[in-house]
């Protein structure tokens, strides 16, 4: 399915949080883990020597490669556990050559970096219905026998979205349909950044050095986010029950 959109909902602190409405598959389908891995490692082979030489002109290609490595891990954590570490290595080199800047805002600074998806405890899923037409024959949903992701006379079949219905429900989950939903902008209140002496005043430049500081080794929880999320839910429920009425 190829559709794009975002919605805003408040997070646990009440601040608005942007959520991806529907996966926007770059190829009309979600690339499988092995394809992402292959693409990421091929890119890494080309980029790594240049970054190591301090060549910052490959920054964009390096960030795209970083996304592939992270997505491959998110798509199949056990098979791609080595990519967790490789992504941090690449992130560290990007950080050292091109630097990673927080986007300053009035109240919060934000950062869109795929590396943080590696550490996120849950993603989200949104129930939604869309109307579509087939890119091959123009028929409505389920009205033809073309399969999205297949090629017909050299043309890739995709479902082109013509209308998006209201959001049914939003679920926090460690087992989302779409790996893209693991990616969320990271936000830090200006106040916190000042307290931590990262900036002196709002608008100051702030760089992210996570990849240089993180060990880059996946924990058992990183490899099994479903169990971690179930534990988080149980702990949350237990705390609720302990709370006096």
């Amino acid at each position, binding site marked *: 399915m190829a559709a794009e959109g975002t919605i805003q909902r408040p997070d646990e602190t009440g601040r608005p949080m942007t959520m991806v409405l529907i996966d926007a598959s770059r190829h009309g389908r979600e690339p499988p883990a092995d394809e992402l891995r292959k693409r990421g490692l091929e890119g890494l082979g080309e980029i790594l020597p240049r970054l190591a030489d301090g060549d910052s002109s490959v920054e964009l290609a390096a960030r795209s490669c970083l996304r592939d490595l992270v997505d491959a891990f998110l798509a199949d954590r056990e098979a791609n556990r080595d990519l967790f570490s490789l992504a941090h290595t690449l992130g560290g080199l990007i950080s050292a050559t091109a630097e990673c800047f927080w986007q300053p805002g009035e109240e919060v600074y934000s950062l869109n970096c795929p590396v943080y998806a590696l550490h996120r405890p849950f993603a989200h899923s*949104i*129930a*939604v219905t869309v109307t579509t037409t087939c890119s091959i024959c123009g028929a*409505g*949903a389920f009205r033809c026998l073309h399969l999205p992701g297949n090629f017909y006379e050299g043309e890739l079949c995709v479902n082109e979205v013509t209308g998006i219905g209201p959001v049914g429900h939003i679920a926090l989950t460690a087992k989302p349909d779409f790996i893209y939903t693991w990616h969320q902008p990271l936000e830090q209140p200006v106040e916190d950044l000042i307290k931590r002496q990262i900036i002196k005043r709002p608008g100051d430049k702030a760089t992210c050095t996570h990849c240089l500081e993180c060990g880059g080794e996946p924990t058992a929880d990183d490899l099994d986010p479903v169990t971690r999320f179930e534990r988080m839910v149980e702990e949350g429920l237990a705390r609720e029950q302990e709370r006096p009425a």
Partner: protein
Amino acid sequence: MPLEERAIPLSPELREIASDNESSDGIAVLPESVTEIDGNLVAGFRPDMQAIGVLAAEAGVAVELLLPDGAEPGLYSEHDADWVLPLFLELSNGVTAGLIANYLQRLYDEWRGRNSGMPTVRHREVISAPDGTEVVRELEGPAPEIIEWLRDRERDGR
């Protein structure tokens, strides 16, 4: 890992659609949701229905999307178990159960070559409970076990 089976009451909206349609020799599918998009009534079905429809056409099995009056079909998406099959109206014979098993087997074979771990499958089917009410029978478990369960039904012709 045992298969987990549940019986879930059918929503009034879906009960109305189901009661208007009797199970046929082919595959009949209920929508996951009915909503309005750009002023049109749209019934959402899971994307897998497209591939199942193609497989059914190849096997000469009729597929019917059960739509409320005036609705057009759309694509429904949400998270859940690894693979959630469309909501079938009672599969009345072994051929249809076999077809779904073939679809899952194909999906699993393709998946197995490219991933580790084990996908969970949720099969859902509207059946008549002993008291005559229609309920959704949900069966969830590892892909090979769901496939085997469907194969048993194919062999038994039910």
